[in-house]
């Protein structure tokens, strides 16, 4: 997928002026967060579950190699195949090879952010295999040659009219603006695709080391049709998704739906273990798991290891005031919101991804709702440290910071500076009490007034009082 992350500001500007998007974002702001709050209210143990979730993920990452080995062994014992992909290119090539081996023409796909991350659809298409997205949102996006703007509600940026037009253009049916009719239409069109597909590709929310199973969590049932009907099922997932046992998976399932959509449980939680068994009347004959790394193994042992706890619930973006203002496409690549602001620089490089960890007020809302308590602001700050060390920040910002630091570290000099600036601002403001323009601060004064200092600085006034003993 094309990387547009360096253009965050321009994209944010466009997003802020896109009325349809703003309507959708306003709806999102009250939708998921309110439902999550109710679900959390109904589960008094939720905080304790979050703590356990964090601790268990930490344990897993400290033993990641061993759990992966166990998972691999079990998948193979069950008659499945395990493939390892260090890079996106490796993953795409491996998946294409499997498709070509079974002479696949079309591939149905369940929702998978990892396949977005590796750009699988484009790669398959270029090599003569037609991928068909089957998650309703993803399907709409594919028709529009668009990309997800949210990790669990991919078409959140589109309105009813957009969907209606896309279906009308591709389905050869009368145009409808009734969501129920549109969904029925997609259901009918995709039923044919499900049945015709040679290969079904899904992601996995977790990989269970104990049993060699993968699990998908969905509401539509498309993932289940994707992985049950074709002869070959390929699970494309990433290495940090492994969990030790079914009980451990269960801990995360309790956290996942509540954090994501505010549901008590998603409609379909489906475990897949190997290919169909002797006597089974349906199910895939081949079962492949492609374990994608794409930079994750390099996060182990660094300050970013904590990010590998992420279970992709989307609570951080649902609650983020920046995401809520500009939407997911502003982030310019696959993963938006706070989790994307930490993950994207890891995957596309801080040189290109640096806009994202800076696009945060560190308000901490994301961390406060994260089901595995990832300290997202702290991790974004680590990226800023990386940028600082590599001198990647804009010159003006670097020199500004250096000059400020010079003063702040010299209290006496700093007092002279504050007295002077205080006096200047008060003089400019005159009787008004505020400034509508201020040199070097147009970022502020273009949008809001700058309240002028009330009087001389506190330190000046305090000193005078100490001398005179006047405390009035």
């Amino acid at each position, binding site marked *: 997928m094309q990387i547009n992350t360096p253009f965050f500001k321009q994209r944010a500007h466009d997003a802020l002026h896109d009325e349809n998007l703003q309507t959708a974002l306003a709806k999102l702001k009250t939708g998921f967060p309110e439902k999550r709050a109710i679900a959390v209210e109904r589960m008094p143990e939720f905080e304790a579950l979050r703590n356990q979730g964090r601790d268990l993920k930490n344990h897993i990452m400290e033993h990641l190699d061993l759990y992966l080995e166990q998972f691999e062994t079990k998948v193979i014992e069950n008659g499945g195949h395990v493939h390892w992909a260090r890079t996106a290119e490796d993953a795409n090539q491996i998946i294409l090879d499997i498709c070509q081996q079974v002479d696949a023409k079309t591939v149905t796909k369940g929702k998978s952010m990892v396949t977005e991350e590796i750009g699988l659809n484009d790669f398959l298409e270029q090599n003569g295999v037609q991928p068909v997205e089957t998650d309703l949102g993803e399907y709409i996006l594919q028709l529009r040659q668009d990309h997800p703007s949210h990790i669990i509600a991919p078409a959140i940026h589109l309105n009813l009219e957009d969907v209606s037009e896309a279906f009308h253009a591709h389905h050869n049916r009368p145009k409808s603006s009734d969501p129920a009719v549109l969904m029925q239409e997609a259901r009918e069109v995709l039923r044919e695709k499900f049945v015709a597909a040679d290969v079904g590709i899904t992601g996995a929310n977790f990989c269970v080391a104990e049993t060699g199973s993968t699990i998908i969590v969905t509401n539509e049932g498309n993932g289940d049709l994707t992985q049950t009907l074709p002869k070959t099922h390929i699970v494309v997932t990433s290495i940090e998704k492994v969990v030790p046992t079914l009980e451990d998976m269960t801990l995360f399932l309790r956290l996942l739906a509540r954090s994501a959509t505010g549901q008590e449980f998603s409609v379909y939680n489906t475990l897949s273990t190997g290919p169909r068994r002797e006597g089974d009347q349906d199910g895939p004959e081949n079962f492949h798991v492609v374990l994608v790394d794409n930079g994750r193994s390099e996060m182990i042992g660094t300050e970013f290891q904590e990010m590998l706890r992420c279970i992709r619930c989307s609570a951080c973006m649902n609650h983020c005031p920046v995401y809520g203002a500009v939407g997911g496409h502003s982030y310019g690549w696959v993963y938006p919101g706070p989790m994307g602001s930490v993950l994207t620089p890891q995957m596309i490089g801080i040189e290109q991804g640096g806009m994202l960890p800076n696009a945060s007020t560190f308000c901490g809302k994301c961390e406060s709702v994260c089901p595995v308590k990832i300290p997202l602001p702290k991790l974004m700050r680590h990226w800023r440290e990386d940028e600082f060390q590599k001198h990647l920040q804009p010159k003006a910002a670097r020199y500004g910071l250096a000059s*400020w630091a010079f003063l702040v570290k010299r209290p006496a000099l700093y007092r002279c500076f504050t007295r002077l600036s205080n006096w200047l601002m008060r003089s400019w403001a005159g009787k008004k009490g505020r400034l509508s323009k201020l040199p070097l601060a147009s970022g502020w004064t273009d949008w809001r007034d700058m309240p002028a200092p009330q009087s001389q600085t506190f330190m000046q006034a305090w000193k005078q009082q100490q001398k005179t003993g006047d405390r009035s």
Partner: protein
Amino acid sequence: MSHTSSGPRVGLFVTCLADMFRPSVAFATVQLLEQAGCRVEVPERQTCCGQPAFNSGDRQTTADIARQTLDAFDGYEYVVAPSGSCIGMLHQYSDLFDVSDPYFQRAKSLAARAHEITSFLFDVLGSSALEAQLKQLRFEQKVTYHDSCAGLRELGIKQQPRQLLSHIQGVELEEMDEAETCCGFGGTFCVKYPEVSNRMVSNKSHNISNTDAQTLLGGDLGCLLNMAGKLKREGKPIEARHVVEVLAGMTDTPAIGEADYYRAKQL
């Protein structure tokens, strides 16, 4: 000076914004502390908590500033500031030092002693410490309260200022929608991403003016300057003040960003 009290010796961390923009906030803090029986001192060697450097990724400078602040506040029983954000920063100092560095332990000790003012009054000194004094005050206003992010989520400040305000006669609190949502200030964020910040503060302004409040209160000057600046730019008649000004009965000064009528008359 009435430093004769035998109460705890408190070092006031003024905060750079109160020093520069709103000395009345620092004076109000001093007054509240003294009313509560504390002996207040203002160490000369303090400047800023270091957050701009910390959040810009400059750990070295942050550590230098942390050392300076740790030196300045050595020996005080408590360190109190009229800001959850700056106190939150002080609480993070220990992350800047290696465990073997003597400043590490000093930073740990500072974190245990450093408190935001409303939390100090309510949680440390006890809910009844200032009750009698507060009950003598009168502030006939409908107010709404913005929960600043660092105070709320790092320090758990939510009920403390509200409880303290509830003792004052005449104050009526009307909660706004999304009181806990960030105002878009975010330190350097507001100038690095001005348009996004503007959207956030516009939402805030909208939620504030959807109440019947005449005055917006908060516990952090950064947020208050941002919100007051937006309210004024939009020509809204709502005034903004730091909560300590009301708690200390120091509301005779013009609100944040308001014309200084008294001074205007003099000129």
